[in-house]
């Protein structure tokens, strides 16, 4: 399968993010630390078939998040994400 067919989007990690943070984050606005693009998390590129989950900017393709789970622990690298803006539910 080509990398294009493997590519999902941020909707696919809504459950994982909800589990880790206790918050619905697919509608949250993210900023890419590399190119500064603002996009909702649902629009980011997600590769979920690696040993972990890799989230890339949908404009510059730089890595914004890496999430690796192992029994009893989770490793989270958000260094490629400049910020996340959560909006209150109405």
């Amino acid at each position, binding site marked *: 399968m080509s990398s294009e067919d493997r590519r999902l989007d941020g909707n696919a990690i809504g*459950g994982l993010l909800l*589990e880790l943070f*206790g918050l619905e984050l*697919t*509608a949250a606005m993210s900023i890419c630390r590399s190119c500064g693009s603002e996009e*909702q*998390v649902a*629009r980011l590129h997600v590769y979920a*078939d690696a040993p972990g989950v890799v989230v890339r900017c949908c404009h510059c393709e730089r890595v914004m998040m890496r999430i690796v789970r192992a029994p009893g622990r989770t490793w989270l690298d958000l260094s490629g994400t400049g910020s996340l803006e959560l909006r209150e539910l109405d």
Partner: protein
Amino acid sequence: MAGAAVLGRLTWLAADVIGAAAETPRVRTLRLHADEWPGHRAGQHLDVRLTAEDGYQAFRSYSIATAPDDELAITVERLDDGEVSPYLVDELREGDRIEVRGPIGGYFVWDASERGPLLLIGGGSGVVPLMAMIRHRAGTGSSIPARLLYSSRTLEDVIYRGELDELAARQDGFELFHTLTRSQPEGWAGYGRRIDAEMLREVAWPAADEPQVFVCGSTRFVDTAADGLVAIGYEPQSVKTERFGATG
């Protein structure tokens, strides 16, 4: 912010299968009941977890097919080399119990109180979350103009075919456009090719009408549809997309 509700941890709930119905030879709808299910919005999905006798666990995400006011149901397509979907489509029986968690998602959701028109574009089982929106629209008596452009391989692969025909026949502002990409029955009046910009130009409202747009399907399908909408003048940000994986 509604503290407890928002901060509550996402937990697995036991869900009983209270009904199962074939939609197509490869697709089945499972009606579920989970005691502590908090309700859902149209377009959201849930995770299903299966545990084998040896303790091995696998989970997958499935779109919720029903309107928010209705009971909970998911529609699942069997992917033949999949780990979960063959069991859900072929083996699971009424009275069986699985685990679910959710609802999940706050981006790919639509509420009937939002402005219209509503443009829905689905490929294959990508129609499922769109059907939740269509059922929500119908169930609330909404008169918001809505169009569904639905791509299937063959007529036999069309999910919810009878219900969609019936809803379109009401002529209450819901319009249905099929395209069949692999084979078309004799006398077929719909489209007979993969989705493209020309088809989108014919089906979609002008971008100036600012429809709410939801596109769901495989990555290739969604990319093609989203690019086509941008080509006919839609702002990329105005097109809400959800891509299905090839692992089932």
